[in-house]
């Protein structure tokens, strides 16, 4: 079965024309939600950026679009470029090489990742998970983690750092990276239920009762195990315990209602496209669907894993991305790096435009979403983590300034931006990683 992507998208456009509240929000949430919720999304790209082709020459409003920013022309005025922010904890700080692994682990946590190849991985709770912790109980999914690449299959990922670091930006606790989904079909089925999940109300109610009894059963065993384990085992059992609890809550509150979503006209995507651009756009579609339907308000999306060495044949680049990013100032490699950066920007621009085309009560979906796009490495050859390439889109309803090139003092903690973003959605967070306070100059 090979479903044409366009068919699928057409379906999406027509079927979900209703405001999110009427069609999908659980009743409890409808009662509570006085206004359109503000969502947050974080889109990550690896291996730095060709900064010469990224950073605008002018500051403030009315800056000119650089080559990499050119794809965002259609929504100019709906995003700002942030210059000068840094993740200082991604630098070695005595830990030696491993900038790729560190930059991903630090990107949303602001914490120095513990250097370990296997035992005892440790970073910090990430900005998205702080939001999920605060508001996750109001939507079916506390948060959604997306990506395009599985973790690598063998060997070391980066200089003695476990591969968990370079394939995760979202950390549920300091020891637990949140697994991400890379198959659009699988995301779709999680969001909307499997296509063949039919059945009458009676059998659905039974099934729910059985599922809840199963979760009770395993919770009890997990609790017993916690009394008979120590050390790191205990922590693994906690991970299990928390995961069960989240699924249980979801089942109790949301499962019956979501099954009513017959989703007529929407066909599930068929799997992982070979073409990376299509893959990114399709995952973006899933993210947009989830945000639009208020199935979640928090999303992270790794367009590729940190240090990824995938060749971009789609734009005729035979060398791997990581190899290219070590350009050594070679003009040919810098050119290739720029081409990859533009390619990624084009896909992100597609997602932003799509969000901006969806009308909600209070502006477009983009207006109601703070979406941060960028990476944890500035120059791929230097591996520096200051002056990071970052673009903050949307968020107009939250009062995010748009259409500006904002330059912050050198090495301003990026975590200050997270504090501000969290504040905008009403999450009470005083400190995140190396933050020193809310971002001065953003408002």
């Amino acid at each position: 079965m090979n479903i044409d992507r366009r068919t699928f998208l057409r379906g999406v456009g027509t079927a979900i024309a209703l405001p999110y509240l009427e069609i999908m929000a659980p009743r409890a949430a409808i009662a509570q939600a006085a206004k359109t919720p503000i969502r947050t999304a974080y889109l990550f790209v690896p291996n730095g950026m060709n900064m010469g082709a990224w950073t605008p020459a002018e500051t403030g409003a009315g800056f000119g679009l650089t080559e990499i920013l050119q794809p965002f022309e259609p929504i100019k005025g709906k995003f700002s470029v942030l210059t000068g922010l840094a993740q200082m904890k991604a630098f070695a700080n005595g830990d030696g090489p491993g900038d790729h692994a560190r930059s991903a682990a630090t990107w949303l946590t602001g914490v120095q990742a513990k250097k370990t190849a296997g035992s005892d991985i440790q970073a910090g709770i990430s900005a998205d998970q702080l939001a999920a912790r605060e508001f996750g109980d109001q939507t079916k999914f506390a948060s959604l983690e997306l990506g395009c690449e599985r973790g690598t299959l063998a060997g070391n990922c980066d200089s003695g750092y476990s591969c968990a670091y370079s394939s995760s930006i979202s950390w549920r606790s300091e020891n637990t990276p949140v697994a991400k989904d890379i198959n659009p079909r699988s995301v779709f089925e999680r969001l909307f239920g499997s296509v063949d999940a039919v059945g009458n109300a009676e059998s659905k109610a039974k099934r729910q009762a059985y599922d809840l009894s199963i979760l009770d059963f395993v919770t009890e065993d997990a609790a017993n195990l916690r009394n008979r384990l120590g050390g790191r085992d205990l922590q693994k059992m906690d991970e299990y315990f928390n995961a069960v609890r989240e699924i249980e809550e979801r089942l109790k509150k949301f499962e019956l209602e979501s099954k009513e979503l017959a989703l007529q006209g929407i066909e599930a995507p068929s799997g992982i496209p070979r073409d990376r651009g299509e893959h990114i756009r399709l995952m973006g579609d899933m993210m947009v669907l989830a945000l639009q339907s208020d199935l979640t308000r928090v999303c992270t999306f790794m367009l590729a894993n940190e240090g990824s060495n995938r060749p971009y044949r789609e734009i005729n680049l035979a060398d791997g991305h990581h190899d290219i990013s070590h350009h050594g100032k070679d003009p040919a490699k810098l050119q290739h790096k720029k081409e990859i950066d533009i390619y990624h920007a084009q896909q992100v621009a597609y997602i932003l435009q799509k969000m901006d085309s969806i009308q909600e009560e209070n502006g477009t979906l983009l207006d109601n979403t703070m979406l941060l796009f960028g990476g944890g490495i500035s120059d791929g050859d230097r591996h520096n983590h200051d002056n990071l390439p970052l673009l903050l889109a949307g968020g107009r309803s939250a009062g995010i300034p748009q259409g500006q090139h904002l330059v912050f003092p050198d090495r301003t903690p990026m975590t200050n931006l997270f504090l501000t973003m969290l504040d905008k959605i009403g999450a009470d967070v005083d400190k995140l990683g190396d933050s020193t306070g809310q971002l001065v100059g953003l408002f």
Partner: protein
Amino acid sequence: MLNGSARKLGANAMVGLPLSILAGMVGIFSVLASPVDQPSQDAQTRKGLEVEFKKSIKPLVDQFCLPCHNGPDSPKGVDLSQLSNIDGIIKDPARYEKVISIVRSQVMPPPSMDQPSKDQREEIVGWIQRVLASQCDLNNPGKVTIRRLNRAEYNNTIRDLVGLDYNPAKDFPSDDIGNGFDNIGDVLSISPLHLEKYMAAAREISERAIRVDEVKTYRAAFDTAKLGENSRRGSDNEIVFFSNDIIKLPVDVESDGQYMVKVVAGADQAGPEIAKLIVLNGQHAIQIIEINGTRAKPTEVKFPIEIKGRSFDLGVGFMNDFYDPKNPDPNKRDRNLFVYAVEVIGPTSSSEPLPKSHTEIIFTHPSSATDLDAPRAVLTRLISRAYRRPPDIGEVDRLLEIYKLVRSKGDSYERAIQVCLQAVLVNPHFLFRVELDNTPKNDGEARPLDAYELASRLSYFLWSSMPDDKLFEAARQGTILTPEGLEAEVKRMLANPKSLALAENFALQWLQVQRISEVSPDPTLFPRADKELLQSMATETSTFFNYIVRENRPIMELITADYTFLNGRLAALYGVKNVSGDYFEKVQVSNLPGRGGLLGMASILTVTSNPNRTSPVKRGKWVMEAILGTPPPPQPPNVGVLLDSKEAITTKNIRERMDLHRADPACFSCHKPLDALGFSMENFDAIGRWRTMDGTFPVDASGEMPSGRKLDGVADLEKLIVDRKDDFLQALIEKMLTYATGRAMTAADQCHVDAIMETVEKKGGTMQDLILEVVKSDVFTKKGVSKVPVK
């Protein structure tokens, strides 16, 4: 003696102290050590370390470290004036492993200070490592964090538990790699996404494994009907036939067998005949029925149908249209048919045999709805297999509660067992390989594994799956706890085809061949390197490794074999005639330069190449990492890179371009061995074909190691590895222990590695000797117990 080991020190900048660095050295102690003279041996060791510190280490530390790291106010609290205190180092291995990493990776001293030479750094690092390794205790097995089943293990376990082999873990999140393997307990985390996938997989597996022949009503959905020219949807959602027509209703049942069709229909009766309904199974008419009912009072008719193939179109039609516009009674002018509902009910009897999984799980049936003996027997067996141990007290009863709940809702025995299976498959005792901590007196105390725990460790090591019936029996009888019993099981298990898992999961990760699915050679340069060829390359390696294991060949044959395993595609790539088809056969390749053994395998040569050219550096790094166990330090950022432009490629060969790069002394010290090792494999191109020319340049496969040893071609590389056999064995043992236990090996494990190596070499050095010694070691058969916190 101590300094003899310094040859390797400094080769590695990894944290966690890979053991192979210490190769040979601690072995010297353990060879000499006997229980009787143990104390004096320890004392001698310590004395030696103290003497060495005063003589060679202290001057270096004084010069390079103490200017800052001296006294209680040292930066980051690292007071290196305490380095002479050997006990202090031993008490805080984590801190000193970090010191090692920092010194070796040249992070310290800071650039503004005096820099020690590479050899001086190695001296400091080597001494600290020897202090740490002097603590190695053969009775301390180390701590293994409980391991969640990874994707491969989950698939295999489901295959062996319920008999379904369909890759149920396909959509699970990937398992992160730690220490080179995807089965490391600390790294295998669990998030809500995992649990969601486990729930969904458990449901699908239980529904596939156990068939529930509940009588179900499948109501045909009229909105999916294919209407004809003379039919339409009526206002009450009925189907109106205003003239002769047949419509098709798609029906999809869960199993084949005898069903009943129920149709509710009415008619506008007119003319001499009663309105007739025709029903078709696909193309074949199965019933023609007179519908006596009216629109106000429709008729309900029922008749049997046999369904084959689960999905079909049920045809429903109107046969005898009548129209007489002249009839004086307007109600008698027009005959029409109205169909209100079509249902398929059943199966009344199933024609499909029950799946094998069904009859194996449900081996007995209750005599009545309240009989709990049968479900108890079924669930007891299920739990003992799924949890890989006999049930605890009350465990079956708790699962029976779910059984009772399902029965109380009116569902069948089979359905209830199905839900119980689902519950078992998301239970932590199934998803994790639990080894309880019990109640140790002291944190860090070791205990021998019990027979079932040991059986699980063994089966997941050798098969990446659960124990089979024979292994369970050996655990039940306790024979597995004796050395002979354990050995017998290992031999039996390695002979089983399931031992291919050791090759596919251990060997392919150790050799980094699993990355073959991530590489993509440039299709314009290497059009034949499609997915199929790449997969064949990996299969060559796993088949070869599996052969060495099952045939109990000498370990060194991994390097020196004069044979390999080829299918038609690989044979063509290697230039071997008379091999065709997909089947892999053993082929003598002594007449082909470079082939035979791992070093001439296309899989390895391809994963260590760039998409468009070979990479001697990556190949050299692979040899140092995987084969010699001395990984080079990582590439520092912001260093020069190889000129790779079109112009560079056409005007200079790769060696000339690399020589330019190496001219920088900062690069030279690391690159010398890397390049020599990598260049020796230059006769293989980026997808492993033999060549004598690289573009327009003749291949130059020569190089010189830092020791002065000259290499020219892969045959010399093979000789070098044979000469450094101990390094190779060290590396392999360390990797195998890591994989077998699911934890990182540290300096304190060195004596285990040495003990294994010594015995293996004494016994003759075959692959099964190695596997047996790994399995018999305390690291494998014991568990370091953690204290359970008081709640």
